[in-house]
C-alpha cells in the first residue's frame, strides 16, 4: 500500500531535495531506464519524457504533507523545490525498503542541470535506435535547444557510467 508513493519520497530524500519539476521528471525517468522499479508511465511531451502519473503522485505527496513544494524565484523564471518533511521521513521509514541500489545515484543526477537531464532523458527515450539515429531524432524534437556535440557525448558517457 502506498509503495509507489514511498519510492518517490525515498528518492527525493536520497537526493536531499530536488529543485525543478522538469528535473524531477527526468531523474525518475532516467532511474526507470536503469531498471529501477518505478511504475510511473511516461510519454513524450514538451521537455521530453514526461509522466502525468508522477506529477499526480508528487501532488498527492504534497497534499499528504510528506513533501513540501516551495516556489523559488530565479529572476526570469520560477522553479519548484521539493523536500521531504519530517512526516515524510517517518512515512519513508514505516513504508520500508529503498529501491535504490546505490543512493548516491540520486545525488549524481541531482548535480546535473535540467538541460543536461532533458538531453539525457531524450536520448534514452530513443534508445531503441542506433547512436546516430538517436542524435538525429534529438535534433528533430529538440532543435530549438541546439545541443552541441560535446553535450551529446557527455550525455552518452553519463548513461554509460550509470549503466556500469
Amino acid at each position, binding site marked *: 500500500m502506498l509503495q509507489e508513493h514511498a519510492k518517490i519520497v525515498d528518492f527525493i530524500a536520497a537526493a536531499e531535495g530536488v529543485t525543478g*519539476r522538469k528535473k524531477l*521528471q527526468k531523474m525518475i525517468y532516467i532511474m526507470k531506464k536503469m531498471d529501477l522499479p518505478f511504475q510511473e508511465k511516461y510519454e513524450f511531451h514538451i521537455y521530453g519524457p514526461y509522466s502525468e502519473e508522477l506529477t499526480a503522485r508528487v501532488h498527492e505527496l504534497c497534499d499528504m504533507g510528506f513533501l513540501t513544494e516551495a516556489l523559488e524565484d530565479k529572476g526570469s523564471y520560477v522553479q519548484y523545490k521539493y523536500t521531504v518533511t519530517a512526516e515524510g521521513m517517518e512515512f519513508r521509514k514505516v513504508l520500508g525498503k529503498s529501491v535504490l541500489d546505490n543512493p548516491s545515484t540520486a545525488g549524481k543526477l541531482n548535480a546535473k542541470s535540467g538541460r543536461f537531464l532533458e538531453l539525457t532523458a531524450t536520448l534514452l527515450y530513443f534508445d531503441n535506435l542506433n547512436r546516430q539515429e538517436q542524435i538525429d531524432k534529438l535534433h528533430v524534437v529538440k532543435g530549438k535547444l541546439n545541443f552541441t556535440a560535446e553535450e551529446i557525448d557527455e550525455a552518452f558517457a553519463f548513461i554509460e557510467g550509470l549503466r556500469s
Partner: protein
Amino acid sequence: MSYATQKLAEEKVFKDPVHRYIHVRDQVIWDLINSREVQRLRRIKQLGTSYLVFHGAEHSRFNHSLGVYEIVRRISDDIFHGRPEWDESERLVVLCAALLHDLGHGPFSHSFEKVFSVDHEEFTREILLGDTEVNEILLKVSAEFPKKVAEVIAKTYSNKQVVSLISSQIDADRMDYLQRDAYYTGVSYGHFDMERILRVMRPLDDQVVIKSSGMHAVEDYIMSRYQMYWQVYFHPVARSAEVILRKILQRAKELSESGYKFEQPPTHFLAFFDRSFTLKEYLALDEGVLMTYFQLWMTERDPILSDLCDRFVNRRLFQYVDFDPGKDYKKLGELAQLFHSAGIDPEYYLIDDSTSDLPYDFYRPGEEEERLPIHLLMPNGDIKELSRLSQIVDAISGKRRTDYKLYFPAELLIDGKKTAIKQQILEMLREGGL
C-alpha cells in the same frame, strides 16, 4: 495511381451513433480497417470495467478509433483543406495515425498494464513497425511511412500541427471519446458543440488554434471533460471492479510462480508472468480470452483466485470508504494486521486506490508545465491562451482534484461468525476510525 492516393471505386460508410456516418474513400484506410490488428480492437472495450456501472458502456476501441479517424478526416478534408498553413501532404499520415492511435491497447488495458508492467504505447509502435498486417499495408505507401505514423502517435513527429490533431488538450481523440462515452453510458454530461469547434479550428505555425469566436464552445468542451472524468471515468464502483481485476491477475501470477497446479493453466499469461512475451502473444489476448479464464477459474481450488473471479464475473464488488492516506497510513497498517488476524489476506482484500485529474492546464514560461495550451486566435491576429480570456476555464486551470478510496469485501466482515476482530475492523472502517 500510387497506393497512397488510390481511392475505392465507391465510398464506404459505417453507420455511427456519434458522427452519423464514417466515410472511407482511401484504399489504405479501408485495408487498415480490415487488418487483423484493427479488427482485434472490436474485442476490447473502450471503457474497461465501466459496463458494470453503466450497462450500455459495451462499446469497443474499434468504434472509437473509427470516430477519431472521422473527426481528423473532416478537419483535413474540409476545415484545413486549401489553407496555406496546412501541409496537404500530411493528410494520409494524420488519417492513419488517427485510426491507429489506440492499436496497442490490450484487454482491460489499465489493469493489465499495471500488473504486468507493460505499456500499450510501446505495443502500438511494435504493431506499426513489426511483422503485422498493419505494417505490411503501411509499407505499401512507402518504406518510411510506418515510422512516420508511429512518430505522430508517439508525439515525436516533426510537424507539430499533425501531432496536435491527435494529441493535445483539444484533440480528435478526446472529442470523440467524450461524446462516444457519454452516448453509450447514457449520461447527460459529455455533450458539447463539436461542429462549432471544428469550424473554428485553424492551423497556425506549429500548432492548431481556435478562433476566439469559438471560445464558449471550447469552455463547454472543457467542462464536459471535467464532468465525464468525475461522473464516469473515476466512478468508485467501476474502480472497485478494476481493483478486483488487478488482484485476479496478481493472484494468478503469484500462484504460477509458486508452482501451484492450476486446473485451468494460465497458458495465455505465462509469457507475461516471466516477461518473455512476444508481440504475437500480446495480440492473442483480448477481453473474451480473459473473461473465459475468469469463468473457468471460478472453480479453481485456490480460494482467493476463485473468489476474486466469482466477484468479477458476478459483480460482487468490494465496498469502499474514503480515506486520507497522509493521516491514515499507519492505521492502514494496523487494519492490515487485523485482516490477517481475521484470516483475510489484506494483499487481496484491503486495497487503497487513488485517482486524480487536472481538467486543463497551460504552459507558463519558466514554470515547467508540460501541457500544450489551447490558444485562441483573436480578430487582430494575436494569440491568447484560453484561461486568460475565459473565467470559467481560469477557475479550474491547474487545479488538480484527487480522490482516495479504500476497498474491502464488506460481506466477509459482516456475514458468518461474528468475531471481536471483525467487529473492530468494521468499527475502524465505518465509524471514522480511518
